[in-house]
């Protein structure tokens, strides 16, 4: 039985007095790719923002390995010592910083020494296009390159856990597919636990190990991705009946 990296217990959260998440249990094991799908406004992004500390949690608990990180600020969670990467959906790079400085920010909590330059080399090997543009400002990058940079920044501290909020949103379909393949490769080769929120529900479920279907802030269905894909009700409601070349759900 593999160990749980991230676990949320009975999470209730929202904005101000508006409750968005109504008690959700979720966990991600080591070396596992977990996808959260659901219609717009179901609370997918809010759920992961709550777990990382960006949205105030009304009640419930969040554990990062053995650490109780409930009600901590994001920077306090990052400083627990368990490397964690988070890529938000919008504004996922620092536009006025150069590409290299963006990567440095991923390494902020550690000393900028040999490890740092080693990891930079790794990232450049992974994303050669970023290596050519190290001194350019991130605001000059295209949508796809920004996503790559955001992912590179999140991978800089060699994370145990990676949380990705719609990494394929607003980029070209072929690059989006590359991105998903890359995420699967990361899981397989580096053994990173990955929590993915995705609009391309069917494609991402095909690649994942497990899935959660969120509806109005509650888990409507959960289980191995293959089972979710096979279930008729979910296929009709959330995956849509479309041909194989779907771009979006």
């Amino acid at each position, binding site marked *: 039985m593999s160990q749980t990296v991230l676990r949320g217990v009975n999470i209730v959260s929202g904005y101000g007095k508006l409750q968005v998440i109504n008690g959700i249990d979720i966990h991600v094991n080591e070396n596992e790719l977990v996808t959260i799908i659901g219609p717009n406004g179901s609370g997918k992004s809010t759920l992961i923002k709550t777990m990382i500390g960006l949205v105030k949690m009304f009640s419930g608990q969040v554990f990062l390995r053995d650490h109780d990180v409930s009600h901590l*600020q*994001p920077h306090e969670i990052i400083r627990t010592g368990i490397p964690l990467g988070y890529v938000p959906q919008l504004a996922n790079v620092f536009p*006025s*910083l150069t590409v290299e*400085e963006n990567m440095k*920010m991923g390494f902020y*909590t550690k000393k900028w020494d040999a490890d740092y330059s080693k990891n930079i080399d790794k990232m450049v090997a992974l994303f050669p296009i970023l290596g050519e543009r190290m001194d350019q400002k991130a*605001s000059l990058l295209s949508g796809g390159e920004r996503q790559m940079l955001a992912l590179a920044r999140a991978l800089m501290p060699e994370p145990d856990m990676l949380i990705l909020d719609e990494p394929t949103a607003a980029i070209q379909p072929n690059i989006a597919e590359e991105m998903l393949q890359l995420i699967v490769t990361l899981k397989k080769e580096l053994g990173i636990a990955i929590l993915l929120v995705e609009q391309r529900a069917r494609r991402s479920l095909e690649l994942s190990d497990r899935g959660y279907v969120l509806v109005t802030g509650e888990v409507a269905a959960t289980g191995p991705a293959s089972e979710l894909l096979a279930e008729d009700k979910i296929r009709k409601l959330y995956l849509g009946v479309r041909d194989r070349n779907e771009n979006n759900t």
Partner: protein
Amino acid sequence: MVLFSFDIFSHTGLALIYAGTLIILTIGLNMVYSVLKFSNFAHAEFVTAGMFMSWWVLQILTFAIPWDTTGEHLINNLFIQATFAFVMVGIIGVLGEVLVYGRLRSFDASSRSFTVASIGIGLIIRNFLAMIFGNFPQHGLGGTSTPSLPFNLNFDIKLQFIRRHPIFGSQGIFITSFQLLIIIISILTVVVIDYVFKKTKFGIAMRATSDSFELADVCGINTKRIILYTWFLAAGITGMGASFVRATQARFSSLDGFFLLLPIFTVVILGGVGSFRGGIVAAFIIAFSREIALIVLTEIQKPNGLEDTIEQTLGFTVTFAPAYADAIAFVVLIIVLLVRPQGIYGSVEATRARV
């Protein structure tokens, strides 16, 4: 042959001093502008507060260390006053963040709210200072005192080589040691702050915070602390600069900072928000254009000048007082906003962020 009826070198010296003053007082505003993305009108009162604080420490030390009979080394030392002003004004800046701006930020107020709040904070600080220290301290009534410099730095620079040369005028450059200090320290401070902003971890964290609070937070940056440091540094440098500026003035009042606010803003916008080196260039442009306007207005006012001509030919009087030269900052500000709103070295982001 008298080519110029005015003294070029004397005016150059005055422009240099004005530029130095602007440079050192601009750094703090530029920092707040680029990191927190709003126009801090209370910056004027950081200047005023710096002047009062540097004068206040003199009063405190006079009682605290009476054995320093000459007062040259500790009681009335410019650098001690500057340090004290740095710390005290820095604390005022931090207080503003803790009491007002931080609360505004917690419910996502727009940058307009921040700007309006800063006007209010400015009024509070200015009137509070006037209440405690008196509104218009006059010379000889404790309003000012010339601080002393350690290490026997008290010298006046007066370039003699062009003296009594009919072409260039007769006075030469005259800069006191305090004014020389302002110019040197302002440029040094810009170089240091520019390095900190561009190269150090703290500087990159500040810029990251200015781009996105949330993203900086999930990178492990304690954004609240970074903002507090930014306020402390910005207000502190302004207070330190103000204490140097005070040393060059015969008297100072609670309105001094307010009168400097407009040229300071012009320098930030002309140089480009977030560009400290651009601020140096902009400060020289503003200072020299003000000096040129001063010369032109003086020429117009001379006997048989334009003012006399208008009076004789048109029959009514139009006054061109040299004091109008201060309005040159307005003119430059309007031209810059119309022609090149991002400033000399500004980036597109800075323009978009402007209110």
